[in-house]
């Protein structure tokens, strides 16, 4: 299913062989340096070949990589985190983690979608697909941040909102719609980071923000490629084709003015050096907050309005931004 994992396994094998040779070379006092150099050169060649210019579909898999840092990896790297639970009504949705936190000494409300890192956690977290109770927790925490003057920091990582029966019975639409309102009105700076997959309205519910960051190989899309293929062609297996059409890469979206900043990843993706990526994301969130905190609430809200007002807007004189007529 994931074409990356095979190549990655091959790279890991190469890594192991290089390490073995080094060890042998040291232990047995034989000179294996030329063999090592050959393997290393081959290794880097493959690395660049595989990861140098990933296609959108490859990026979808990088975004879904099991070892890619998840929201909790970012949250746990903050100075401090106190988790707040529940929608206050019927359930605490584990697919969303949120609470109060200190980010470089700054008090914030932090909210992230949490997929699992293994099968067990995936089941517990419902693969990061948030139910209405989860979105109501998100809304509650956003309102709390707004009320208390705590900037809101979100981490987006979801295939999409949970599509199960119970979620429909509990008004998934209303839950997301009211999240959108809460983020639109929040009287504090909001910084959203798409760190994995940003799927559809279920992602946007955490991503109306004054500053939107995307990791280099994360994706953000109106629908998952599989969903898009199913909707358009009634054939989810055409996902790769859909991925190419959807313009879901960070680079596309920066060009469209839909995201504000891209944070680079190491060759091979964030999973190859999670600690470094996590630290740089936090640093950039901090820098954004520094800038946004200097803006009055009134101006902040006006700018937030204008930012979204402009996307796909029609101007009678010139063509709408990003929309060619």
């Amino acid at each position, binding site marked *: 299913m994931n074409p990356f994992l095979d190549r990655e396994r091959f790279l890991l094998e190469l890594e192991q062989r290089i390490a073995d040779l080094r060890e042998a070379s040291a232990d047995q006092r034989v000179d294996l340096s030329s063999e090592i150099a050959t393997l290393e050169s081959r290794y880097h060649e493959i690395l660049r070949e595989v990861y140098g210019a990933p296609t959108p579909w490859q990026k979808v898999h990088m975004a879904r990589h099991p070892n890619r840092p998840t929201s909790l990896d970012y949250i746990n790297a903050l100075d401090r985190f106190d988790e707040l639970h529940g929608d206050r009504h019927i359930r605490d949705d584990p697919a969303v983690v949120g609470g109060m936190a200190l980010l470089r000494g700054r008090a914030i409300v932090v909210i992230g979608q949490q997929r699992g890192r293994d099968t067990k956690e995936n089941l517990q977290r419902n693969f990061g697909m948030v139910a209405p109770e989860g979105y109501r927790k998100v809304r509650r925490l956003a309102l709390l941040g707004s009320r208390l003057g705590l900037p809101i920091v979100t981490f987006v990582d979801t295939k999409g909102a949970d599509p199960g*029966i119970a979620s429909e019975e509990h008004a998934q639409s209303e839950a997301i719609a009211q999240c*959108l309102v809460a983020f639109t009105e929040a009287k504090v700076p909001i910084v959203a980071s798409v760190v994995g997959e940003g799927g559809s*309205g279920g992602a*946007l*519910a955490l991503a109306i923000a004054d500053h939107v960051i995307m990791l280099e190989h994360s994706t953000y899309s109106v629908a998952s490629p599989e969903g898009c293929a199913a909707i358009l062609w009634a054939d989810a297996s055409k996902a790769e084709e859909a991925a190419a059409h959807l313009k*879901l890469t960070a680079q596309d979206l920066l060009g469209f003015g839909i995201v504000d900043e891209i944070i680079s990843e190491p060759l091979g993706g964030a999973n190859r050096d999670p600690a470094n990526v996590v630290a740089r994301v936090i640093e950039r969130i901090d820098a954004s907050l520094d800038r946004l905190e200097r803006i009055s609430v009134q101006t902040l809200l006006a700018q937030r309005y204008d930012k979204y007002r402009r996307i*796909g807007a029609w101007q009678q004189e010139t063509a709408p931004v990003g929309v060619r007529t």
Partner: protein
Amino acid sequence: MAPMPEWLRVRRGKNATDAAQWSKCPKCGEMIYRRDLAANLYVCTRCGHHFRMGAYDRISTIVDGDFAEIGGDVAVGDPLRWADRKSYPAKLAGDREKSGLSEAVVCGFGQVGGFDVGLGVMDFHFRGGTMGTVVGERVTMLFEEARRRHVPCLIFTASGGARMEEGMYALMQLAKTTAAVTRFMDDGNFLVSILTDPTTGGVSASFAFQADVVVAEPGAMIGFAGRRVIEQTIRQKLPEGFQTAEFLLEKGHIDMVVHRRSLKDALVRLLDYASKGAERRALAGVDA
């Protein structure tokens, strides 16, 4: 207010030209004269099934007289230069031809029961009522202008969700329209959404469920995820009646289910309450 546009005059005086056409009721199978169907507000004369209505047909049944459209000149774009089996512009051209619409929503101003209102009407016959930049822009213009005029809005939804062929531009219309709706409502203006068959995805998850009062037509399918997506996820058939307006009423999601025959009266009553409330608020604040 602009004079009554030609289309409205024509529609009101609907004549025999299309009377020869038959429509088959998707629920009971009854064959109905197109003219009889129109005369019955596109409700099956046998089983009461509510057919999907065209936007202009809908407007003609709701406004008292004139209707001044806004945003009609907002042009259709192709932000992603999308092409699969067909190019996106070609798909749009086909739908324009077929539906007689320039896009999936018609917005404007008119009177309903004597009340000035902003009116937005989505039409499933254009790209399945999906929301792209044009729908987002027109709806946003509607709420901005209604806010300027300080009049309530009625919005009829019918949508398969966000429009794939406009990618993230389409998704961002949820944010854009939410911003406009929020400003509109924060100024104390009244919003009623009327959910018609079907209302799903991004439209369902934005202005449809941000309204003060949420009305639905009988039998309308309403939900976030589509039936097919859910069935694929849970790997079983959904129960009969799942995601219908009546189901949602029982589950507490919507305020009322109203037969199309009674719909205009119900909306006028709601507008009347809100109008009286607005009068009260204008007077309150000073002690007598």
